[in-house]
């Protein structure tokens, strides 16, 4: 079904988490970038362009909400899934308002992560198709 390869960005301050999850996704033939901080994540998004971002909220330095806002500014079509160890209602509401696709609480199984990622990628593809057709219309 998927003709294009999905690109995922994992943002978390836990190095081992990034490493292992990256390996898992790569085994499923998915391109994976990792970032240990918000700033690093923004750099990756800008440089490589990603489809799906898994974003931690509590991070030293540049926190998740700020990162989310910036990602949405740089790459509005990228789907962001918030993945956090500790959820507050405020964070959830704010995240969804800022355009996050979902708000998930750790721990999640690999299967669930994959499902979410695919769901998000479907959305991205739909949006891309829509965008292309709109561009075509504009041209004609």
């Amino acid at each position, binding site marked *: 079904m998927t003709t294009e390869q999905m690109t995922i960005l994992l943002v978390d301050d836990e190095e081992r*988490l990034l490493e292992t999850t990256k390996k898992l996704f790569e085994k499923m033939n998915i391109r994976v970038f990792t970032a240990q901080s918000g700033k690093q994540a923004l750099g990756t998004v800008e440089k490589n362009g990603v489809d799906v971002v898994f974003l931690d909220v509590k991070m030293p330095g540049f926190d998740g909400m700020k990162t989310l806002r910036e990602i949405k500014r740089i790459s509005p079509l990228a789907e962001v899934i918030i993945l956090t*160890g*500790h959820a507050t209602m405020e964070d959830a509401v704010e995240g969804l308002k800022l355009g996050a696709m979902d708000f998930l609480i*750790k*721990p999640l199984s690999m299967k669930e992560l994959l499902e979410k990622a695919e769901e998000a990628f479907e959305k991205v593809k739909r949006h891309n198709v829509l965008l292309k057709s709109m561009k075509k219309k504009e041209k004609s």
Partner: protein
Amino acid sequence: MQTDMYKDVHRKLLAIMILVPLIPFVAALGIGYNSYEASMRRAAQERAERIAGSHAALIESFLNERKTDLDVILATVGHGQLASTQRLESILSTLQRASLAFIDLGLINAQGVQLAYAGPFELTGKNYAQAHWFRETCSNGSFVSNVYMGYRHQPHFVVAVMLRQHGRKWVLRATVDQALFGDLVEGVSIGTTGEAYIVNNLGELQTARRSGGALLEKSGETVSDGRMHMMKNDDPQRFIRAVVPLNNGMWRLVVRQNEAEALQELDWAAMCIAVVSLAGGAFILVLAFTISNRLVHMLRSKEHDRVEMETHLMRAARLAELGEMSAGFAHEINNPLQIMKSEIALMEMEADEAGKGEPITGERKAAILDGLDQLGRQIDRCAAITRSILKFGRHSGPEVTTVNLSEFLPELCEMVKRKAAVSGIEFSCSIPGDTPSVSLDAGQLQQVVLNLMNNAIQAIEERHDNEGGQLKVAAHTLEDGRVRILVQDNGNGIRPENIEKIFNPFFTTKPPGKGTGLGLSICHAIIDAMGGVMEVSSEHGQGTVFTITLPAITVG
């Protein structure tokens, strides 16, 4: 310590409740008794004086009458006729018809020789020139003698008057019946012990005394300088006594009554007072005991309620603190759990790829072993977190132990380290190894320090959002041996108008529902109870320093 305080309060309360009513009560009874006694004594004294006065007048008039009788005889009859014994006898019998007082009658010339005598004794020709009464009569014109025995060996006294005619002196002398005279005095009676008697200047009884003392005996009283003196040794009983001078100061009429009898009613009053005192005193004692017991009981139960309330509040504050911490704990546990899930997934995948029945070797084996090792690490991480949660929740009742701050404080720092890190706070914990130990409840100190650190993190987050925050926990020993713990942040600080209020219960700047305003007030109370001091200094927009100064256990 608490019960001792109440015992002391109880003692003081009891003393006050007994003394305050008892002092005026006893004073009122005492004053009442004294004034009653004084008025009784005055009344008895006045009665004795009244009786003495009226009797003295009676006796004086009796003596004067006798002198007047003789005066009249001397003046009207003339010494010539009086010199005849027959005439004298007829005059005596005339006198005796009027009054039985006279026993005999005699005329004496200036040389003291009795010229004529009428009476039961043979006294004609006797010479009285040396007699005291004779000389006194010659110089004063008249005289009433003391009672004496004289020639006839019977107690009697004489009344004598003098007449001066044609340059010659005559003395008319009469003997008064002492028995009759005595009746005048001895008949007086007041109650059963009241009596009257006459003493002369030498203290000799001139009349018999009912309470003991025959005629001419020493009465135990002397008269000198016109005043009467008692001989203390002879006077074992106390008397109410009235004294009136008689017979130109030669005699004293004494009216006296046994004080015990005169003041008999006082005994009744004293008994009444004793009964009232005992009953009243007992009443006061019973009242004081019941009321003070009840008061102390009330105080005790109030104090108990207060302590219970405080315990509840502290428990509530601890729970609030635990809630605050739990956010961090959840984050810290969920992260390792996520890692474990990923590790397991990866290991499963490696195992699947190896194929059925194929031994896992080489790179795959290394990858799986690495995953297992990672599982172990993450489990340890979770265990450390649950341990610290349990440690926090475990302390239920205050228990004073020796707490080694150089170990205790770094442990606390460990608990908030990650929380500070996720908030992007530069956290430093400098606790010197030689920080002294303190004696207190570790759970309470933990609650206080954690509360301060959490407050600091919140204040930093408000100001810095995720960068540039600094939190410093430090400890050092003061010169006086106390130990000081500092929690310093560069958060948004406290407004000057609030700094006075932050230790007040229920004061909070947080929006409703966000904070109880109890944290700092309870911290303050806890440190106070430990005998320590908790202080704050803050600059709005710059940061805050909380200091806790605690008495350390002196080493050595």
